[in-house]
């Protein structure tokens, strides 16, 4: 049982994640933008954050991830990033390589496969504090 914050600008993604994670007894909160997500994270102090890459310029998911990692209280919250990048290009996020540059702990591709989301969430929730990827270089673009 954990507190999970889902951040995405798309209602349907929030809906899907909520439905899946609720069946495992987690408490879910949702936010519709990166900036709102950061504020809600401070209030709710979640055990895990599910974050979309997001296309919207100002509130993009990477920025939210950097802000969370710079926050003393939130720094050690594991972040699971949702992306659909690999469909567009053959490019695929690689945790070993890109994890150094993006301060997130795991990537899950859309469309969401329930079992995959659940097992990654479980794994991250058990990750120890010092294994969280708190580093990352700012200018990844």
């Amino acid at each position, binding site marked *: 049982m954990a507190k999970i914050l889902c951040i995405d600008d798309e209602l349907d*993604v929030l*809906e899907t994640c909520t439905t*899946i994670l609720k069946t495992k007894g987690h408490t879910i909160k949702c936010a519709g933008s990166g900036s709102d997500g950061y504020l809600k994270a401070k209030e709710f102090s979640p055990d895990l954050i599910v974050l979309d890459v997001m*296309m919207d310029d100002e509130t993009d998911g990477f920025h939210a991830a950097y802000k969370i990692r710079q926050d003393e209280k939130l720094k050690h919250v594991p972040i699971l990033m949702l992306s659909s990048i690999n469909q567009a290009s053959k490019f695929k996020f690689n945790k070993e390589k890109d994890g150094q540059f993006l301060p997130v702990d795991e990537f899950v591709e859309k*469309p969401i*496969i329930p079992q995959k989301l659940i097992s990654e969430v479980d794994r991250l929730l058990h990750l120890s504090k010092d294994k969280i990827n708190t580093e990352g270089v700012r200018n990844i673009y």
Partner: protein
Amino acid sequence: MRTLNVLLVDDEEGIRLGIKRVLQKFILEIPEFEEQISFEVEAVDSVSGFLSAIKDKKFDLYVLDYLLKDGNGVDLLKKINSPSPQVTIMISAHSTLSLTIEATKNGAFDFIIKPFGPSEIKAAVKRAVEYFLLLERNENFEREKKKIRFEFISVLAHELKSPINAIESYLNLMVESYLGDKLSEYANIISRSKSRIQDMRKLITDLLDLTRIEAGSRNRVIEEINLKEILSNCVESVNFQAQKRGIIIKSIVDGELLMFADKTDMEILLNNLLTNAVKYNVDNGSVDISIRRDISDSDSEKIFIECSDSGIGIAEEDQKKLFGEFSRVKNDKTRNIAGSGLGLSIVKKVLSYYDGEINLESKVNFGSKFSIVLNEIKGK
């Protein structure tokens, strides 16, 4: 002040020194391009000198002698094939038609005939620079166009991908019966999926409109059309949606309102205004659409279209953005309304063919008024 690099190839030392001296003191004003140009000249005396010079430097202007010890200028022309703009002037002792043709075919822009003086060089260089700047401007323009195209396509790909991902994620939930065995538990998921499919359908029709518009005047048919009739067809097609929510559409048109325009263009304009006014309205709201001709002048070609609604309105800070491609207001009220964000950008494109304009007045929770002015296409 901008400096252009010139490569001069001539086997006569006198000419090399002469041209170099003239150009290095020369400052050229090109007011049309707001440029002031100076020249940096490198002079070589042979084909081999030319080849080593172009190996590690990019030149903007070439001045090539036709006859050289180890080859001729036309062969050099063929070797200049850099992708960036450059312009070549040929020097020849006597102008023969066949030489001119051959050099021009290979990309020479201009010729100076020996003997020549400083004023001839300056005049030729001036023409060449103007042409050079034109090429550059054109290239920037093309590059910009490609960039815009690329951005459009990547946003489009995203817009197509998101609904498909959303629907597939929902289906994955259903496949694994995440909400139990009763179909009724899935009502929300099903209705959301249907709404995303509507988004996609709308996107596809909007894209078709857009390609049609971007194809330009080729498939526009300018004829006398009856705007009143077109409007009443458009109203009819949105009325079903409107009635379901108790929204009343009133249209006011003075007379028959005949005008010269393309029928599909006008349908696109009216349909977009009307569907928006209904979609972004409240239950039991109203839509008023009026079309009139400028009455101050009976010969005037100006047509005014006004569409106002009693809907959700648009916040000040969102008003400007809406006319851009794929821009939609995202808030709790618009969440469940299907759309592509292309409609108003299409309206704007259509209006550009009629030297038209669109303006918006809106207040959140009170409603919006879109006003269009357009000019009839005359001369038919």
